């Protein structure tokens, strides 16, 4: 595991609120290798942001880290001083936020904003920093970067702004780049461009990326590995192919099958009924049980441990218990698995692609 640049171990985070204690992160562990992209998916409120914010040391003031470790190159970030964390942030750890419209200071030129991390960490001259900022802006594809350095955020389109935010994040060649739903606020065309850009940058810079989203389509396009979160826990983790073609957790099944495909026409979309549990008072058993069509008695009583599916694939569902009855996943999942199996055999021939040809 020495190639793990980041290891999160048994992280538990609570929030003190007027209404009580919100158990936002419950025993989350995962790791990130150098140069890989880990996607964290999960529904709104499942704890994706809290997890990544805890890595950046940017939790809200009412957060309490109950226990756990966040090892960055073997060093526990949770034990570092505020000053040391300031040093990490924007330097070897970077973050991109969801909304490009609001993540830039509206009153500062973008040149300065991009150069800022350099100035904070690099102790280089203003001119040099600006020069470098310009290079990075060109790198992320801002046309005419030289002149546009003096412009303010509102003079850019949403896609361009997100590029600028990315430029800020990568200007110091971070080792880990955390992108918290970087494309959710963008429309599909721009989203596609941003994803391409991130892939490109990763190749060039060899950065490790944690990519948060709830859009499985995006995940399919960018991730090497995927962690699926539900109600403050990671419930399934595996390589992107494992998650998409051989998912084991009923929640992942639900997610995958609720996306319409070509042939769902007319038929009802399969959806996940209900809403996520209240983290003020999480259920005793499997948090997903109330929405789970495959729920078993034990799901109401105990939280499932991780069951190993393969070296890279784990899932926390009692369905994987050796004693559990074998169930048939929903049809779309079965179909996916079949298509995948077929693909594996034929050595990846034509995919049933639509719209990707002229």
């Amino acid at each position, binding site marked *: 595991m020495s190639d793990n640049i980041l290891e999160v171990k048994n992280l538990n985070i609570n929030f003190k609120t007027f209404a009580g204690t919100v158990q936002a992160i419950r025993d989350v562990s995962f790791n990130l290798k150098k140069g890989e992209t880990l996607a964290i998916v999960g529904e709104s409120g499942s704890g994706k942001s809290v997890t990544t914010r805890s890595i950046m040391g940017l939790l809200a003031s009412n957060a309490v880290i109950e226990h756990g470790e966040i090892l960055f190159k073997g060093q526990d970030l949770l034990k570092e001083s505020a000053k040391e964390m300031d040093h990490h942030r924007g330097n070897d750890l970077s*973050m991109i936020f969801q909304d490009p419209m609001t993540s830039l200071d509206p*009153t500062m030129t973008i040149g300065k904003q991009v150069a800022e991390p350099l100035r904070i960490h690099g102790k280089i001259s203003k001119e040099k920093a600006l020069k470098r900022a310009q290079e990075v802006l060109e790198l992320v594809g801002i046309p005419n970067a030289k002149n546009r350095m003096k412009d303010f955020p509102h003079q850019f389109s949403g896609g361009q702004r997100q590029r600028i935010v990315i430029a800020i994040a990568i200007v110091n060649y971070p080792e880990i780049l955390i992108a918290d739903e970087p494309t959710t606020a963008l429309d599909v065309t721009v989203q596609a461009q941003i994803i391409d850009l991130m892939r490109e940058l990763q190749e060039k810079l060899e950065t490790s990326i944690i990519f948060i989203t709830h859009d499985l389509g995006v995940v399919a396009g960018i991730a090497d590995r995927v962690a699926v979160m539900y109600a403050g826990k990671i419930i399934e983790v595996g390589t992107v192919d494992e998650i998409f073609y051989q998912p084991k957790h009923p929640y992942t099944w639900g997610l995958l099958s609720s996306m319409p495909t070509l042939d769902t026409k007319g038929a009802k979309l399969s959806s996940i009924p209900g809403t996520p549990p209240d983290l003020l008072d999480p259920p005793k058993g499997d948090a997903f049980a109330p929405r789970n069509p495959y729920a078993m008695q034990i799901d109401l009583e105990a939280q499932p441990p991780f069951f190993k599916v393969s070296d890279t694939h784990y899932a926390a569902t009692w369905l994987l218990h050796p004693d559990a009855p074998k169930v048939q996943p929903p049809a779309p999942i079965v179909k996916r698995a079949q298509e995948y199996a077929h693909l594996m055999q034929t050595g990846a021939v034509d995919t049933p692609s639509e719209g990707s040809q002229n």
Partner: protein
Amino acid sequence: MLKYILKRLGYMILTLFIVASITFFMMKLMPGTPFSNQDKLSAAQLKIMNEQYGLNKPIWQQYLIYLGNLLHGDFGTSFQFSNQPVLSLITSRLKPSLLIGSQAMIIGSLLGILLGAVAAINKNNWIDSLATFVSIVGISVPSFVLGVLLQFFIAFKWHMFPIAGFDNWQASVLPSLALAVSPLAQTARFMRTEMVDVLNSDYIELSKAKGNTRWQTVVKHTLRNSLIPVITILGPLTANILTGSLVVENIFSIPGIGEQFVKSIMTNDYPTIMGLTIFYALMFMVMLLITDILYSLIDPRIRLTNDKEEN
């Protein structure tokens, strides 16, 4: 921008014209005459006086003459200070008011901003409560009570500043302080609300993610953005402070414009009242214009277009 300013100036002139007209006719409604010895004035004298001040003509003629003179920058001469041109009266009285007024605004807004910022940063803890309390007390104490207290304790008892008068800069400190409290309290409360909002915004988050320390974040990104709305209240506040300073001017014996204003009203000094009113209106509008321009300078998102007013 130039076009915008020109258009605003156009509106200003229109407004001034209306204000001048309104005050002119209001003056005509005011009871009493400007002459202190009316009963002893001979008919001939009254006639000559009325002629010279143009009071004998029909009101609409007086009005036209007044407006005509205004166009030439002639505000007429004061009744109370015989032969003293209103314009020079205003300008000579303006300096002290401007000095204490602007000092009060500077002290008030800076401290207010500081207080508001400190409160916002420490939101919901005792520092915040303390700051809130201070600003509430600030709005609860009338300036004349404060003026008297400052004078008695700081100047009279502790000899820190002059008691009254306007001989040197030191003398302007206490009146400025007395006047500063209300803008201080108001900016503090405004600033706090604004800054709490800004502190919750994404770009502050990003600033932290860049590795800025708490203070760097506040200085580089928070203050400026929270200031933008605060600036809008500073304009009217300044205009008010400049004219509403009568009480403090009285207590500290400052020959300011607020005092003059009340006095000219009390002595039916029509030309001075009108001059001061127009001056006040002008000041008010200039302050608004300045704040709008400042606003656009500080906030690059705002372009000074004529449509801004519709937003």
